């Protein structure tokens, strides 16, 4: 395998007296889907926020394409090529798909000295990118509020990829979705991975992770037990690591299978 595009080495993050991350190391390769698993409070959110420039690590090193990075704000990570799609903050429902797609990156058409939003170009690109992702819009001016949760995630993913994301961080993209929408989003992740984008997929659902993941890293109480490749680990083992012990095993027995 090629050298990793993004390396997080011994990342520690303290919030006052609270140690949210106690030395987490993860590396991500091009074209792989790296699943970051963990229960609530395991430190998943803190970790990806460090990766995407929202938080600054207390200790540790971030290497992007082999070079050490020091992200001060989300904008720095975005311009380096690390895009994050947040679960419920991906899109603005009142605005059209096309306006959302180009939010912050609007194409410009010059008329004399004046700069205008090139709606025609924006609309064309939006329609073609959406149909690549398998979403048929009524029109580019359709409001995002009329899309389903899965479609919104897909629009956000398509947007990040279109604007040149090399690493795509997805923060629990499936946790609020139904079965069908979840499979659509997982299919989108699969498609994006094949385009050579490194995907970091955060979830607490082992089955969703197993469906598309190449490698798996489990976080528990701010620590990691290391990374396992696909085929080396069973869903049950992942589940146990997430729960951090055996207490879930007995519960699982009575519930009959993977939670």
């Amino acid at each position, binding site marked *: 395998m090629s050298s990793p595009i993004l390396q997080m080495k011994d990342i520690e993050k303290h919030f006052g007296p609270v140690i949210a991350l106690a030395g987490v190391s993860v590396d991500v390769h091009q074209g792989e889907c790296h699943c970051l698993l963990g229960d609530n409070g395991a430190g998943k959110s803190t970790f990806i926020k460090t990766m995407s420039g929202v938080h600054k690590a207390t200790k540790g090193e971030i290497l992007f394409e082999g070079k050490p990075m020091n992200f001060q704000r*989300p*904008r720095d990570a*975005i311009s380096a090529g690390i895009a*994050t799609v*947040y679960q419920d*903050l*991906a*899109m*603005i*429902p*009142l*605005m059209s798909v096309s*306006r959302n797609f*180009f*939010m*912050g*990156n*609007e194409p*410009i058409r010059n008329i004399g000295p004046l*700069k*205008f*939003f090139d*709606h025609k170009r924006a609309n064309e690109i939006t*329609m*073609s*990118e959406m*149909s*690549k992702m398998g979403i*048929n819009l*009524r*029109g580019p001016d359709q*409001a995002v*509020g*009329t*899309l389903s949760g899965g479609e919104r995630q897909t629009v956000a993913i*398509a947007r990040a*990829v*279109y*604007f*040149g994301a090399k690493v795509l961080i997805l923060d629990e993209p499936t946790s609020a979705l139904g079965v069908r929408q979840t499979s659509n989003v997982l299919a989108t992740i699969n498609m994006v991975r094949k*385009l050579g984008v490194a995907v970091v997929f955060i979830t607490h659902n082992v089955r969703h992770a197993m469906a598309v993941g190449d490698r798996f890293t489990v976080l528990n109480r701010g620590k990691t037990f290391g990374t396992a490749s696909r085929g080396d680990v069973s869903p049950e083992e992942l589940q146990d690591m997430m729960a951090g012990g055996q207490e879930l095993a007995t519960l699982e027995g009575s519930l009959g299978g993977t939670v």
Partner: protein
Amino acid sequence: MVTSNPSPAPVADERIKERSSLRKALVRPELGGMCGTVLVFTFFLLTAFDSGMFTSQGVLNWTLVSAQFAIIAVGACLLMISGEFDLSMGSMIGFAGMMIAIFGVTLGWPIWFAIIVTFILCIGIGALNGYIVIKTGLPSFIVTLALLFILRGFTIFLPQTLERKTIIGGIRDVAEGDWLASLFGGKVLTGVFQWLGDAGVISTFERGVKAGQPVVDGVPMLVVWAIGLIIFGHILLTKTRFGNWIFAAGGDAQAARYVGVPVSRVKILMFMFTAFCATVFATCQVMEFGSAGADRGVLKEFEAIISVVIGGALLTGGYGSVLGAALGALIFGVVQQGLFFAGVESSLFRVFLGIILLLAVVLNTYIRRMITGER
């Protein structure tokens, strides 16, 4: 970038109903305002046609009132779409007018200089409004409510201290022939109106010193400012990158920040633009009356917000239209003046206004849900 794969031809989705182009053309934020305009004009054409409301003078009368509402509505509209309010607009109108009078009359500065300094001062106060809202994270409702009292207090205190009165007159004398003052107080197209009067299209004075002159001798600069601001606001909002940022800042500030929209800058600039609109209003008013009074602009902030809401904007931001706000201002002006022409007891104006506001908001909510899929 995903540009290598050829994009598959869009396939018709069996889950999407075909919609008529008429429906597409009609279902837009301004629809409520358009319906209201038609309704209001029909009403007054039927009930007040003979009252003089639709003579050239009558038209000028309600056009002027509507234009006043429109000037402040454009500012309030863009600010509301960006997710904030400015309750200090009315006080700002009184304050700006008073500052022009104090600078120009009491201190005797050239009026153009007084106007420019007032604009800078007021836009600065607008920026301060925005800065406090952004830095503290407090609702703009509260912050600008504080400014409402502070500015009104100064507007009463300053002339009382300096001139021992609350109305400063004599502005028309000092503004005579001033290049900048004529941008706010003059009239344009006077030749066209003289020609229309001569041609008999609009009525002319029959006796007196003005005999032969048309009763309406030009388009007041107030109306020109209103139209100019409406066009500017509409283009800014719908046709530019900055317009997209205005929608984004009001729709979801955090989501907008995550994709790199400078939300704080957008909001502060909109506060400044609102202050600019209020100052334009004040300057036109001062030039028209020739005086500045400490009670000018009272309740104007609500009239602006009402126009904007009638025009289809969402109170919580992220959605709305400048054209809609302009129609809202027109409806407001026509109703206010029309009831006067129709001879309706003036206290009933408020009843009428309340009913229109309620109807407009119900209709607009319904339209907005159709467009945005809110539930």
